[in-house]
């Protein structure tokens, strides 16, 4: 009996939906294995916005890519071929995005990136149907370089893992940083012991350290750096100071400056509501990734209000307009469909028992990325 009712309800819903221009979203994100925390945050942020919008003409299909590029490609094929989605989103990692996005946009689907922003997709490989709602990969690093100048730092030691995003990161920092480099190091991806690097930092005579070590690598580095007795000021991008991992770093992160386009204390109504409802819904503080997922969904919903997804040109224009209340405050797309936004400098503080971030300055205002000029679109 129950089953029959459910089927009936489903078919009614289907009928109802078919009357309107339905938008089907395929979310491919990392929900199992290493790095699942990021995907879960993006998904939760996205689904919170979907729930708040309460639209029954928006359907989201979610699949786990296990952080494997080949799985992500298969899922994209599945979503395009079998689920017939209109919009794809959700990918966390640049290498997965590089595997999925070009083929998806070439097949006429829209792709909204809630996290990864590899430089080829911002420059020569840009596409009208690709919108990045987070940042271009270099952005936060550029802001860190700019902040280092403002803070009067003259001689930085910089390090990142030896992989493309790591190289982009240090390139981004160097693009803005006006001082000297006391040293530049590339570590092994997934490395967990940084004693050798810290020894070199100590010996280098630098006046500051910039590092890009996402996930567990950053946790390890911060703890080991704090224990080493080297007390040069540390600067990093938000990825190593996110809500999800700060608790695992503990006191070692206190006072460290990091750059981010979002923080929970950004003062606008959308953000305040977001932080409050996210906590109420999931019982934890939202992270940077959750905010990006939330914005991505709201961007999509704003476009749905203005155009029919079947009319690709109109829908694209509606997306480009980006008329939604971003939790970051001002948000606009540049010509290459990447954000133009403020990037802030945050400091890690302790609120009661919880480690979190506080904005202390603006690193770059209305910042666009360095690859926009290469984009012919």
């Amino acid at each position, binding site marked *: 009996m129950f089953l029959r009712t459910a089927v009936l309800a489903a078919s009614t819903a289907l009928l109802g939906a078919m009357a309107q221009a339905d938008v089907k979203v395929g979310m491919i994100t990392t*929900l*199992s*294995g290493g790095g*699942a925390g990021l995907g879960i945050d993006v998904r939760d942020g996205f689904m919170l916005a979907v729930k708040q919008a309460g639209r029954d003409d928006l359907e989201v299909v979610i699949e*786990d890519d296990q952080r*494997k*590029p*080949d799985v992500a*490609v*298969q899922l994209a*094929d*599945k979503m395009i*071929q*079998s689920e017939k989605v209109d919009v794809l989103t959700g990918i966390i990692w*640049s*290498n997965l995005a*590089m*595997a999925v996005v*070009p*083929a998806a946009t*070439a097949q006429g689907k829209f792709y909204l990136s809630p996290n990864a922003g*590899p430089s080829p997709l911002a420059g020569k490989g840009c596409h009208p149907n690709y919108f990045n709602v987070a940042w271009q990969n270099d952005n936060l690093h550029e802001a860190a370089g700019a902040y280092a100048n403002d803070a009067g730092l003259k001689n930085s030691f910089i390090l990142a893992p*030896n*992989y*493309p*995003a790591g*190289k982009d990161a240090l390139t981004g920092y160097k693009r803005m940083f006006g001082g000297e480099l006391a040293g530049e190091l*590339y570590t*092994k*991806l997934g490395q967990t012991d940084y004693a050798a690097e810290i020894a070199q930092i100590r010996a280098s005579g630098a006046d500051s350290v910039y590092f890009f070590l996402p996930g567990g690598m950053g946790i390890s580095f911060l703890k080991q750096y704090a224990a080493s007795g080297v007390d040069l000021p540390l600067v990093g991008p938000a990825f190593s100071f996110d809500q999800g991992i700060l608790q695992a770093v503990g006191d070692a992160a206190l006072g460290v400056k990091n750059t981010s386009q979002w923080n929970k204390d950004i003062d606008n109504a959308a953000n305040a509501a977001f932080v409050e409802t996210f906590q109420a819904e999931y019982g934890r503080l939202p992270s940077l990734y959750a905010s990006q997922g939330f914005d991505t969904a709201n961007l999509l919903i704003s476009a749905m209000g203005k155009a029919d997804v079947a009319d690709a040109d109109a829908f694209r224009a509606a997306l480009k307009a980006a008329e939604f209340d971003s939790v970051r405050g001002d948000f606009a797309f540049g010509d290459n469909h990447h954000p133009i936004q403020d990037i802030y400098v945050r400091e890690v503080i302790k609120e009661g028992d919880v480690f979190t971030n506080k904005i202390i300055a603006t690193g770059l205002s209305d910042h666009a990325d360095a690859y926009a000029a290469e984009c012919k679109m």
Partner: protein
Amino acid sequence: MTRETWTNLAALAVLAGVPLWAYVADEPFIITLATRAAIFALAGVGLNLALGLGGLVSLGHAAFFGIGGYAMGILASHAQAYAPLAEWPFLIEGTKSMPVIWLVAVVASALAALAIGALSLRTSGVYFIMITLAFGQMIYYFAISWPAYGGEDGLSIYVRNGFPGLNTLDPIQFFGLCFAVLCAVLVLMWLVQNSAFGLALSAARQNETRVLSVGMVPYRLRLVAFVISGAITGLAGALFADLNRFVSPTMLSWQMSGEIMIFIIIGGVGRLFGPVIGAMVFILLEHTLGGLSEFWHVYLGALLLGIVLFAKGGVIGAIAGREKAHD
């Protein structure tokens, strides 16, 4: 015909039939899944020569799978960018032609297998397992940190490579191609199993002293088996990269080696069709269990454990019973 033969034919019929049905029913994704199964099966058939017939437990076959993938990625990316691979000592152009890519993939992975095998086969047993694993890791880290071909980001190919007379972008045609390659390799493996070489290789697995005392060198037999095995897995890698139109170091990771081994164990070790059935079951599990729970690896692990502990012959063993002696 034996029950095993019937099982094998049934497996081929299912593998070919499902995508045909999907084609009629307009479910292109099912075709993609079947293609994935066929390619994984091919990789497993390659490993099975070393593992099943030769008794060489290689935990580094992802290296050859990945090298095959990179052969495709590198050649196609150069062709895509109209930039030659090398201009000196003579001009080498990239290519988008599958037959050429396959040849390069086979040769490159065979050479890698020759180098890795020559060193690793000096050892045996558990040393061999660990050394192949370590060599696999070495190539993995090389691929991640070498910037020329995308490092960890990998390489994307925007259009699938071409095969004379076929539209490879059409899922069913590309499936047909992969299926044909799989069948051709299966025939080849069947011949090898029953050849002089196959007899000697399998005797070397059972009793090394015996083979030595009839004047054959087990090391040489194993090295040849390892090279052929690596070459076939490399060919599968090239196809896999073409299926995804993408290659990255993930194809080289040690978990990939473990998965290829899982195909064999699910189907049945040393059986010609073991990897074929194993890969089909694996794909099926991945998509049914994966849909049930985020934590589907727990169930996969439990299932695998059950097969290893209680159903040693895998699926074929359960259906066809103990392997009978060849004659």
